[in-house]
């Protein structure tokens, strides 16, 4: 079966080559039979890659350990759930998944836009095919998942225990979906540039795609944070590690695009900028992979350093030359239709929003690459860590939060003083009341006070929009309030979905601001001994060590330490943190021991207990106890964010007519209907 998979990959390679040549030819010559051939080739590629994926999955599930990939990532005693996820646990399988996802998205894009954008689709097919050529070439020439060993091991090596976590089953595919789906907007941008059809048509075709990419990427990042938090045991969820930064960069540029695209739709401005953002997002997705696979930057998440990194670098350079070269070529055709009238306008606030997102991206990029940059410039490697990223990004993040509140409040074109007064009264009141209350309870961290006050401002904005919209519908159509609310959101999904996303962002900022109050202690306890830990809310946790036990479970040998926890004298639970030594099917130890963290979580704070080890031969145990305020809000903020994204994406009411450009629109639903 793996032979079939291997052959399928090779055929895909040639079909993709054919499709890329024919696609561009069809775009130039307008010959429909060539266009059809390119389009069909994309579907054929998809079918072939499905066959290859099934072949690899079959090899994994049947424990065909003669296949190097199967032997390296699975074992007989690995639960089926994780055998399934081993498909993308390693580089080779990931590449196959990437190729499959790109061709799936490409096929869907062609099917959805069938009969539309006739001048664009052949180029889109050609560009998608080039991306697939690259991924498949990387597999067949450098990193083949079907490679066989010269011998058949009796059992595989098994999956790294840190990857045996539900978060790791969903986090990588989400990120890959986010990374790869941006190929479709990129392909449309290339197509628009090549064909010269630079009206807003191509934007309509890709706006949703970018939102899909953004949504997958957001979910992937939050799931990755969750995995790091529950699995790695260092007590946090974000460390500004190069791998994390790599996923954050395209997220920033996509977020910028999702805002600036509105300016182009409504006002015909920022055309070059938008194409630049799409091309940049695609390049950053590839760059992220290059960074982690090439070993250029050392990261704690060390993946194997392989020549695959150089395949990515070559592709990155080619894609950059293609994307930005075409943009430069079409520069004169991309002039703005109108000029910016006033900075105190929706456009003005969006311009600053874009500026800040890009500046954040630049600082993260610079900080991540600084070891390389400093070595090139001064001959010595200098690294920067979380203090650098926090110093630069905390003020920028707060400015962005402020703009999140301002943007929806001010009118397009030029806001009148009357508009400003009416719109800002309540949100600013919310801001001031929150700031005053926090000052009154003497919140010690100044940045956090600012963050919560601005958070209240944004919530004020969003609530005001929902309330005024609902009231207006009630008045105009005589609808009951709940119905008016549902219809309001249903009829303006993009807008109100966007507001829900903003609420999710506020929850995330609230959680990040809570990090300022994190407390951490390390303590060694004999059974029966206890320790008191103060929480930032003033509570006292009384933690008593109950003893250490050892037992065998599933595919591992467990040493567990148990503690009883009282909060202000009231029992809140028994927590158990484990050291796990994973075993192979013959009972021999594999991998280094891993840690299972014990977490007691509620909306206010998490108690995070790590059993770090026992004193040799005794039950005296070392614990690291962390109090993490408001971590819960990261996960639920992520959930709200995703919900908002889904509302915006939900198909229906908004056809191309609704999205067609209106020259100017007064701020607020009320102003529109009144």
């Amino acid at each position, binding site marked *: 079966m793996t032979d079939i998979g291997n052959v399928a990959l090779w055929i895909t390679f040639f079909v993709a080559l054919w499709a890329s040549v024919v696609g561009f030819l069809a775009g130039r010559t307008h010959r429909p039979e060539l266009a059809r051939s390119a389009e069909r080739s994309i579907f054929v590629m998809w079918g072939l890659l499905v066959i290859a994926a099934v072949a690899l999955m079959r090899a994994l599930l049947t424990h065909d350990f003669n296949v190097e990939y199967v032997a390296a990532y699975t074992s007989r005693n690995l639960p089926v759930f994780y055998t399934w996820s081993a498909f993308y646990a390693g580089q080779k399988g990931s590449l196959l998944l990437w190729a499959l996802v790109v061709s799936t998205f490409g096929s869907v894009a062609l099917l959805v836009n069938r009969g539309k954008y006739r001048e664009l689709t052949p180029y889109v097919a050609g560009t998608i095919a080039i991306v697939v050529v690259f991924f498949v070439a990387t597999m067949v020439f450098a990193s083949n998942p079907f490679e066989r*060993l010269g011998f058949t091991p009796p059992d595989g*090596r098994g999956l790294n225990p840190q990857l045996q976590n539900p978060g790791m089953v969903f986090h990588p595919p989400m990120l890959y979906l986010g990374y790869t789906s941006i190929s479709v907007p990129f392909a449309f941008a290339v197509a628009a540039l090549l064909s010269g059809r630079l009206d807003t048509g191509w934007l309509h075709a890709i706006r949703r795609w970018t939102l899909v990419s953004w949504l997958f990427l957001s979910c992937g990042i939050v799931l990755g944070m969750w995995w790091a938090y529950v699995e790695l045991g260092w007590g946090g969820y974000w460390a500004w590690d190069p791998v994390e930064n790599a996923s954050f960069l395209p997220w920033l540029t996509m977020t910028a695009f999702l805002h600036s695209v509105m300016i182009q739709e409504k006002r015909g401005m920022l055309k070059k900028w938008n194409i630049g953002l799409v091309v940049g997002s695609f390049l950053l997705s590839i760059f992220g992979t290059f960074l982690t696979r090439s070993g250029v930057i050392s990261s*704690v998440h060390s993946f*194997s350093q392989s020549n695959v990194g150089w395949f990515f670098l070559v592709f990155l350079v080619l894609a950059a030359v293609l994307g930005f070269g075409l943009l430069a070529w079409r520069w004169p055709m991309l002039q703005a239709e109108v000029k910016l009238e006033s900075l105190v306008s929706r456009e003005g606030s969006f311009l600053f929003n874009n500026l800040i997102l890009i500046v954040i991206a630049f600082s993260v990029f610079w900080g991540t690459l600084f070891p390389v940059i400093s070595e090139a410039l001064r001959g010595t490697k200098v690294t920067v860590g979380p203090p650098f990223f926090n110093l630069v990004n905390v003020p920028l993040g707060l400015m962005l939060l402020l703009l999140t509140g301002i943007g929806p409040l001010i009118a397009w074109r030029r806001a009148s003083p009357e508009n400003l007064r009416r719109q800002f009264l309540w949100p600013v009141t919310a801001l001031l009341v929150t700031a005053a209350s926090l000052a009154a309870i003497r919140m010690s961290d100044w940045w956090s006070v600012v963050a919560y006050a601005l958070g209240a401002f944004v919530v004020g904005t969003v609530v005001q929009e929902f309330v005024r919209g609902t009231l207006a519908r009630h008045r105009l159509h005589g609808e009951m309030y709940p119905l008016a609310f549902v219809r309001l959101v249903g009829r303006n999904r993009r807008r109100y979905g966007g507001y829900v996303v903003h609420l999710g962002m506020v929850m995330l900022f609230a959680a990040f601001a809570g990090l300022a109050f994190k407390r951490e202690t390390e303590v060694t306890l004999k059974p029966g001994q206890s320790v008191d830990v103060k929480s930032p809310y003033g509570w006292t946790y009384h933690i008593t060590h109950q003893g250490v036990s050892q037992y065998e479970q599933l595919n591992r040998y467990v040493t567990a330490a148990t503690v009883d926890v009282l909060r202000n004298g009231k029992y809140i639970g028994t927590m158990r943190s484990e050291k796990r030594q994973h075993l192979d099917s013959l009972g021999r130890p594999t991998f280094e021991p891993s840690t299972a963290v014990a977490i007691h979580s509620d909306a206010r704070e998490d108690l995070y207990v790590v059993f770090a080890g026992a004193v040799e031969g005794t039950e005296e145990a070392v614990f690291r106890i962390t109090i993490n305020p408001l971590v819960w809000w990261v996960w639920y903020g992520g959930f709200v964010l995703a919900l908002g994204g889904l509302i915006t994406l939900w198909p229906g009411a908004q056809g191309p007519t609704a999205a067609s450009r209106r020259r100017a629109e007064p701020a607020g639903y009320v102003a529109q209907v009144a």
Partner: protein
Amino acid sequence: MRARTKFIIGGALVVGTVGYLMASGIKETGVYYLTPTELATKISTDHSFYNVGIKMGARVVKGSITRDVATQTITFRATDGTHTYPVIYHGLAPDTFTDEVDVVVEGRLQPDGTFRATTLLAKCGSRYEAVPRPNGQGTMPAT
């Protein structure tokens, strides 16, 4: 003043501030990343390096790790093949910290030649990738 000009001024203010923050951030929090050999070279020419926080990337010498759980002290020797420094670290080591892994230690070199580490990061070449062997047992890739 035209809106465009205002935006350019505002933008320049933002970019300027961030540029300043980045420059001072790098100056204040940037840490030299050196191998033991590079550190030895630097130290021999510039004694002020004893007072600077640095990161050292090296490999743990096999059998050199001693752990004292009661005082949470770990000592080991770190090498790049040419130069070797003894390292002292107080705190909890990551699970992946073991013989012959690559580590990044952050701290200061003491005048007595020991490296006093405040953070210890371990990375393992086999952490996510592995090479199967005929006996079926997992092994670290030979690097």
